[in-house]
């Protein structure tokens, strides 16, 4: 039972139970396909979730609502730039990273210069980013270069490539969070901003870097998602706003900041996908499916919480 004391254990336990419940109904028929789909879709949630986790770790009030708009803009601009040409893959990737960095800088500029609460700053920013995406997209669906399309939709050694990318990013994020000075500074700011400042943490630099990191990961996720689904759509980021927050919290990171973990995000990402596919397998009506999804999220939070007292 010692493993259950780990904050991330609950999300994996929940994901495992849901997986079993689904396989049980299909009598194991689709277990391979289900696992592969779960890994693929969890990968996108994990990418945006990790960025959001770093932001949330910064402490109360820190949240990035511009994630969906950034995903859309990055996917749209990169595909437009590449225009299906193989030789443009690297410039496309660079454009994606450029979008991420620009959005992150703009977000923090608003937060810092105008002292707007992050939630409103990133919300206002997302309106502007969304407009740029609408303006540059114009409803034209440009196909991704063939090599990218096949890379994002195929697997290496039965593990989807996107999941491998997300895994690499997760490992890097884990090292960054737990073993680097930057990661420790992020956690310190989340635990107490004044204390961190007194201790000589470059608060502004760290926060700026975190918002840039979050936007860049969102841009990367948008880029991969648009290659995976054969083109960028204006609404493609929508579900990732709630998803990015949900995976962080279900994964066992503290909403009040200062304490987070990377593995839990994988458990939560898998859980969130598997829940939907389980309810689909059981052929529930859309309404019941939504209600059960909501109740299960709350139940997981109820179970996973209560390990720490003291309201922040």
């Amino acid at each position, binding site marked *: 039972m010692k493993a259950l004391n780990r904050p991330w254990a609950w999300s994996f336990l929940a994901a495992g139970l849901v997986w079993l419940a689904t396989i049980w109904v299909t009598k194991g028929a689709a277990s391979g396909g289900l696992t592969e789909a779960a890994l693929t879709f969890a990968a996108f949630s994990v990418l945006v979730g990790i960025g959001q986790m770093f932001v949330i770790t910064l402490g*109360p*009030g820190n949240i990035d*609502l511009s994630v969906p708009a950034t995903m859309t803009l990055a996917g749209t601009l990169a595909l437009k730039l590449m225009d299906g040409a193989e030789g443009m893959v690297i410039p496309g990737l660079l454009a994606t990273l450029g979008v991420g960095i620009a959005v992150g800088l703009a977000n923090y500029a*608003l937060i810092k210069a*105008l*002292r*707007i*609460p992050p*939630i*409103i*700053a990133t*919300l*206002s*920013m*997302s*309106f*502007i980013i*969304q*407009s*740029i995406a*609408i*303006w540059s997209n114009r409803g034209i669906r440009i196909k991704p270069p063939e090599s990218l399309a096949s890379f994002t939709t195929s697997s290496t050694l039965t593990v989807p490539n996107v999941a491998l990318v997300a895994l690499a990013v997760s490992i890097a994020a884990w090292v960054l969070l737990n073993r680097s000075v930057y990661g420790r500074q992020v956690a310190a700011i989340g635990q107490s901003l004044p204390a961190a400042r007194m201790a000589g943490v470059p608060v502004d630099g760290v926060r700026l870097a975190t918002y840039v990191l979050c936007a860049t990961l969102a841009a990367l996720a948008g880029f991969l998602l648009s290659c995976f689904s054969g083109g960028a759509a204006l609404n493609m980021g929508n579900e990732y706003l*709630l998803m990015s*927050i*949900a995976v962080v*919290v*279900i994964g066992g990171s503290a*909403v*009040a900041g200062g304490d987070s973990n990377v593995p839990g995000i994988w458990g939560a990402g898998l859980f969130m996908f598997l829940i939907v596919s389980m309810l689909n397998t059981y052929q529930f*009506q*859309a*309404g*019941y*499916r*939504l*209600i*059960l*999804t*909501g*109740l299960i*999220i*709350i139940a997981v*939070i*109820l179970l996973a*919480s*209560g390990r*720490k*007292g*003291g*309201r922040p």
Partner: protein
Amino acid sequence: MTPDRLRLLVPVMALVALLAGVFWMQPRAASYTGLNLLLNLAVPIALATIAQMLIMAVNDLDLSMGAFVSFVACVTATFLNDTPALGLLILAAAIAVYAGLGVIIHLRNLPSIVVTLGMSFVWTGLAVLILPAPGGSSPEWLRTLMTVKPPLAPMAIFASVLIAIVAHLIVMRSTLGVRIRALGGNERTVARSGTSIIATRAAAYALAAFFAVLAGMALVGLATSADANIALRYTLLSIAGVILGGGEFIGGRVSPIGAVIGALTLTLAGSFLSFLRISPDWQIGAQGAILILVLALRLLFNRLEARR
């Protein structure tokens, strides 16, 4: 001027500036009918903003506001219209659920963001079950109430003033209101003063749900029918409205009058942009820009406030 009054100055100025802009570009808007058309959708948004403000007063955040108002709209357009007694019972039960959420969030020390996130799925699910396709119809009395044409000024203005006064009396003047804001300010102090903090949080949530119910009903009265996604925008609109009106995320610092003005400003911003003939591509972006502009003004005023 007291700091609280000064805080109200920016939202009021933003509202006046937007109104002036609208009138200047479209003089015909400065009439009874024009104002009514411009502002009547602000009534449900103002009510939802007050609801969000009550949750924010206890340092929580309700991400299910839009889903809940949509659910209420669906109940209003179906049950409340066909079998009023059952409809009222459902709405009362929904308010009780909100009070229960307040208790659970407090007892288990849960993050309100996540609990309400989960609840947003539940409310949307219930709404989809009630009305799988857009439909239903508004109860006759509600339709009459929302389209009433009082003398002197349109209904929307009377309604906004009434909402602001009632919310101000409850939140700023009543004992309960003071306790709710105190809970946001310093929880321990409230507990030491002998007030039950669980009951206070539950009351804040129930009161918020009550205003959200009114928002859903007002929306159906205007729209005449409902849809499971009719008010999804309200979640972000209500949060932005509270902040525009001078409220804060933490510390129980809220302003009901400011919140109503914030809601009116957000509604007008949409009309202002369509009068400007901005390409539809940029309308959302321009709304973001207006939000940023108003908040920049507020910073300027806060600086002035600090200097004196």
